[in-house]
C-alpha cells in the first residue's frame, strides 16, 4: 500500500498553450514536439474549449493487464504505472487497450512510453501557467 499521486486536470483553466507538452517531450525525448508528449490536448469549439488528457494511473490499468511481458508495473513510491524499457517488446498492445490513448510505442524510441509522473515531480504541472494541471494525492491504491 502506498499513497497514489495523480495529475488532476482542470479543463476550465486550460488555455491550450501546450507548454505542458513541450516540457514533457523535452524530458522524455530531449526535444520538443507536442504530438509525442505523454499528455494530449484537444482544442474544440473554435478554441473556446481546451481539454487536457493525462494518464489516470488507473487502479485497474488495462495497459499493464494486457502487457504480455509484464513490462508495465506500479512504482511503489509514486503509484505511477511505469514502463520497464528493458522488458518492453514494443508490441503496442498497451496502446490498443488504453481507453484514453495516452500510452504507446514512440516512433523513434521503439519502446512503449507513458506518464511516470516524473518520479513525483511532473514537469507538465510545473510548466502549466494557469493551474490547469495539478499534482494530487489520492487514497490507497487498489491493486485490483
Amino acid at each position, binding site marked *: 500500500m502506498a499513497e497514489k499521486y495523480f495529475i488532476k486536470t482542470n479543463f476550465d483553466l486550460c488555455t491550450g498553450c501546450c507548454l505542458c507538452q513541450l*516540457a514533457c517531450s523535452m524530458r522524455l525525448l530531449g*526535444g*520538443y*514536439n507536442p*504530438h509525442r508528449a505523454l499528455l494530449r490536448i484537444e482544442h474544440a469549439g473554435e*478554441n*473556446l474549449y481546451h481539454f487536457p488528457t493525462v494518464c489516470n494511473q488507473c487502479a485497474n490499468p488495462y495497459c499493464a493487464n494486457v502487457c504480455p511481458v509484464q513490462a508495465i508495473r506500479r512504482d511503489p513510491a509514486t503509484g505511477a504505472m511505469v514502463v520497464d524499457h528493458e522488458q518492453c517488446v514494443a508490441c503496442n498492445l498497451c496502446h490498443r487497450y488504453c481507453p484514453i490513448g495516452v500510452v504507446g510505442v514512440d516512433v523513434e524510441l521503439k519502446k512503449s512510453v507513458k506518464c511516470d509522473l516524473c518520479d513525483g515531480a511532473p514537469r507538465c504541472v510545473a510548466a502549466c501557467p494557469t493551474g490547469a494541471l495539478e499534482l494530487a494525492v489520492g487514497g490507497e491504491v487498489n491493486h485490483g
Partner: protein
Amino acid sequence: MADGSMGQFLVADLTSRKAWTLPLPQWLKDDFVGGKGFGAKLLYDLTPAGADPLGPENVIMFMAGPLTATAAPAMRACVITKSPLTGIYLDSFFGGRFGPEIKFAGYDGLIILGRATRPTYVWISDDQVEFRSAEGMWGTDALAANDRVKKDLDAPEARVVTIGQAGENRVKFALISCEFNRQAGRGGAGAVMGSKNLKAIAISGSRLVKVNDPAAFHEACDAAGADIRASQTCAALTDSGTSNAVPWSNSVGTLPFRNYFDQVDDQADRLGDEGQKKHLFLGKAACFGCPIRCSQMGAVRSGKYAPMITDIVEYESAALMGSNIDIHDVRAVAHLVKLCDAYGLDSMSTGGVIGFAFEAVEKGIIDPPPGVKLSFGSVAGAEYLIDAIAMQNSDLGRLLGLGVRRAAARLGGDAEAFALHVKGLEVPGWAPRGTPGMGLAYMTADRGACHQRGFMVAYEVGGKEFRGKPVDTYGLVQKAEILKGEQDYLAGLDTLVKCDFGAFGVTSKSYVRMFQAATGRSVDARFFDILGERIWNQTRLFNLREGLTAREDRLPRRIVSEPLPSGPHKGRRISEADMAVMLADYYQQRGWDKNGHPTEGKLQSLNLDKRIRFTITPKPIPDQIGISTRLRD
C-alpha cells in the same frame, strides 16, 4: 549539433507540382537567423525585380525562427511575400499552431513558388508532400475550408492555413487564416495565395525540435517567463487582451473616429474591455507555447448576431471596424470582424476602406447602390461593403477591393484627401496627429503604415522614458533616434520569431540568453540591434529596387493638412515641414543618403555589400534528395 533549427527549407513549386528540400546555408543562419531575417533576404533574392505580386514569379514564404516551436514563451512565425496592396516588401506575423508545426515537420520554412493550373492545396506530413485538388472547396470561406481540409485528409491533428473567397478573388488586402482566431492579416498575402490557386496548406510533423544546451535553455525560458510575470503590460494582456487599449487610446487622443476625422470618441468604453467583458468574454486561449494567453474567447449570446463564438475584438479591429466607422455595439463589431475572418479579409484595412467609402458617399463622390445606406454608424452598410469587397461581384466591390490608395486614384477629385494610407497600406488604429514620432514610424515602416515596427505612442503619450528621461510629446528632435532603435531591435527579435506582446515583458537580456542556449552561438547585448539594422537595410534595398522613392515616405493628407478638431491634441497636425525635419534626421540616423538610399559604407558595415545570393536549384530531382513527392488529383 542542435541549434534550434531543422537545417532545411521545403520548396513547393505549384507549377511543376514538385517539392524538394534545400539545406539552410550557414551564412544565412549567421547573418539573418530566421523568420523575418530569412524572409527579407530570400524575397530579395528569389523574386525578380518588378515581379507582379499576383503573378507566378512572386514567392510566398512561411518562416519560423530558431525559438519557434520551443518552450521559449510567446513565439510566432511569419509570412513574407511581395504585397499586391503596396507593391513592396510584406511580412505578416501570426501566432497559433501552424508556425511550430512547420518545424515539427522538419523545416525552418516553406517556400512556395509558381502557380497551380487548378485549385490546389498542399499537404505536408513530415517528408511526404502532396499536391491535392481543392476544386471541391473553392468558394468556401476560410474557416469552412479549414474544416474541409482536415476532413479530406482525415487528419484532425493537422494544422492548416487557408484563404477565403477574398483571397480567391485576389482582393488586395485578403488575409491568410492560420487556424481559428489567428491570421497573417496585413498586406494581401491571401491574394497571393489566391493568385497561385492555392487554397490551403496543411501540415503535420513528428520531428523533435532540439536546442543546443537544454538545461541552460530551460533556465533561460524560466527567466523569460519571470519577466512576463513581472510585467504590468503582460498582466493587462492576460486580463483582457488588447481590449483595454481602447479606453486608454481614447484618453490619450489616438483613437481614430469617423475615418480619422477626429481622434477621440465619447463612446469608446463600449468597445473596450468594459463592453467586451460584459457582452463577449468567457475564457482565455493561448497561442502555442505562450503563458500570456491574450486571446479572450467568448460568444455573442444575445441580440441580433447571437449565437456566435468569437475571439476578443482586438484593439485594431475595435478601432478600425468600430470607432473609425462610428459603430459602438461591440457585438455588431464582433459580427463584422467575424465576417472578415470568414471571407478572409484584413479587418484593419477593411475598416479603413469602409471609413473611406462612407466618407466618399457623404461627400457625394460615391453613389450608394439603390436601397443601400452607406453612412457612418450603419452596421448593414458595413456588412454590405464587406460582402461586396470579398465577392467582387459589383463595381463598388471591385473598386474598394483595391484598397484606399488605388480607389482614391480611380475616383479622382478630392478623394486622396481622405484616403488614409502609407505606401498603400491602410493606417492602423493609432491615429498620429499629436504623436509625430508615431507618424514617422508610419512614414518609414518597411511594409507601409504599420504600428508594430516602432510603437512611438508609448514614448510620446504613454510615459515610456528614453535613456532615463521623459520624451517630449510634440517635439521633433530625438524621435528619429528613438524610432531607429525600436525598429532595429524589434526586427532583430522578429528573426526568432518573437510576439510583440511577449516583448513587452521579456527583457533583451533574456532574449539573448534563450538565443544563446538554443543556438550555441555566443552573442553580445547589441546583437539583435545590429541584426535588425541589417534586416532594415535589406528590406529597404528591396523596396528601392521595386521603385519606392523618398516621396512615399510620407503621411496621408488628412494627417498633414487638417488640424484636429478636438481632444487632447486639438489643433495638431504633422505638417510637411515636420515630416521633412524628422525624415532628414531619420535618414541621417540610418546612414542613408538624402534620397533614402543606404550608402555603400552602411551596407559594408552590415555585411550586406558582398551580395551573396540565395538560389534555388531550378530542376529538382526529388528522389535524389530524399523526399518523396506524391502527386494526386
